[in-house]
């Protein structure tokens, strides 16, 4: 029996197998860490090529989720994560140019005045007993800053969980599913407690940026803190099944959800 954190795992590994898994654990974390720098460098297209699954069968149900749903399939992910993002950044650039006409509205200037940091830490990684897949959960105290159009910028703290499913491909571990579950946003230099209490899906900047995902589902309702436990921490597992996926096939609304936000007011 190995000494495993959390739950008893009776599987025995040879020294060679165990060291292979130790090495896998570091490689898996490294993929998530590299993505931090790809994001900061706005290398999104390259990220999809370098870090995500390349097997067409896996690409078909690769997914990218946030609080309000999932984009599914690499084509759809690319449309949102690369193409739509560039369109949004072009609007940001136009705003920056309004304030400073010396900034030309060109592709070269696409990211003027923007900065995105999503550092991750607190990695909890479980590699399948069969060594073919892995699940990982991280936390990110991140920020995104975009030009306002008046010479200033809107700087938002955006902490939240980041969950990954990884698959082993011929050239290393690759991202298969991602969920970035934002916990809150707060403009730097403002009092968070002055915000409206309930999550407002119409005005929340993270939800607006996420647009219209293929699968619409409120997976993480921040009104109830971490009550919904999504994305859930990975547990030791032997082999892959869709039930444990961080893709939409693995999302289950809590069975006893009870009342949703703002309900239950009419008892008087």
């Amino acid at each position, binding site marked *: 029996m190995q000494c495993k954190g959390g739950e008893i795992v009776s599987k025995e590994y040879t*020294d*060679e197998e165990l*060291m*292979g898994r*130790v*090495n896998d654990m*570091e490689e898996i974390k*490294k993929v*998530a*860490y*590299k993505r*931090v*720098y790809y994001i*900061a*460098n*706005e290398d999104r297209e390259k990220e999809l090529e370098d870090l995500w699954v390349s097997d067409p069968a896996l690409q078909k149900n690769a997914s990218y989720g946030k609080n309000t749903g999932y984009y599914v399939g690499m084509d759809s992910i690319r449309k949102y994560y690369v193409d739509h993002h560039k369109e949004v950044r072009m609007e940001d650039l136009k705003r*920056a140019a309004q*304030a*400073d006409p010396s*900034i030309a509205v060109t592709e070269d*200037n*696409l*990211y*003027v*005045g*923007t*900065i995105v*940091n999503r*550092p*991750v*830490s607190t990695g909890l990684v479980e590699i399948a007993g069969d060594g073919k897949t892995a699940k990982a959960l991280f936390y990110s*105290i991140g*920020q995104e*800053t975009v*030009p*306002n159009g008046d*010479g*200033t*910028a*809107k*700087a938002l703290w955006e902490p939240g969980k980041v969950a990954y499913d990884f698959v082993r491909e011929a*050239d*290393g571990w690759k991202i298969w599913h991602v969920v970035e579950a934002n916990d809150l946003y707060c*403009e*730097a*230099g*403002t009092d968070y407690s002055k915000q409206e209490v309930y999550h407002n899906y119409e005005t929340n900047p993270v939800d607006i940026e996420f647009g219209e995902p293929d699968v619409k589902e409120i997976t993480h309702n921040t009104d109830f803190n971490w009550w919904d436990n999504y994305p859930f921490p990975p547990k030791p597992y032997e082999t892959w099944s869709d039930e444990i996926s961080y893709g939409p096939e693995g999302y289950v609304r809590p069975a006893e959800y009870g009342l949703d936000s703002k309900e239950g007011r009419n008892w008087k």
Partner: protein
Amino acid sequence: MAQYTTEQLVSRWEDQRAIKNLMGKFANCVILNREEIVYDKFWSSKDDVCLAFNEGAYIGPEAVKSYYQAESDRTRLVGKLLQKKFPEQLGKLSDDELYGVGPFKVRPLASPVIEVAGDEQTAKGLWHCLGAYNEVGTAGPVAYWTWGYFAVDFVYEDDQWKIWHMQYVNDIDCICGQSWGKPQKPYPDLPEFAPLKDFKYPDYTKKVNLREYYTPTRPLTRTPEIPQPYDTFADTFTYAV
């Protein structure tokens, strides 16, 4: 991808763990204001050591040591000024007891990408650092948020991993409670901290605009280069300036 034997994998795993431990100890020394021990404890004895910040670099052992000495001198000065301000709490403290009072600098290191050379003689690491610090300035204690990177070359020397070249560069250095997207409103200077105005760090060996701080008109500024697998240091890039 290079193929390694189990024994090599173990050794390489131990290397990267030792490097994380080294950087963790370094960060703890910064919290404790123990910069005076950082050079001897953690830096390589090589002649081409390099410590770089956004605007310049200290190159060579004497220059790097002089930076840490200045940091230590400044800490000592801050302690003295606070002792004068708070005679009731601090008046009876000896110099040793007073040393370190005032500044508090936290540099948490996240998202490490570490590559150990195939020959295990050098390594490279890149970390994101969301930091918080108060080094006590002419306005007294004021806290700042920082968002930036540590990019470090390491060398295996005397049976230990040591820092060879280090870049600590920030995008953001913003007064806590204010926005880095808007003009900052500095706290007013306080007369009791006026002597800090005259305090100067040693000149950089090399002034260089390594990284511009964020402004709402700054172009995309790439992170320090991400380490890639390599065999020997000659096959890769350097974080030296």
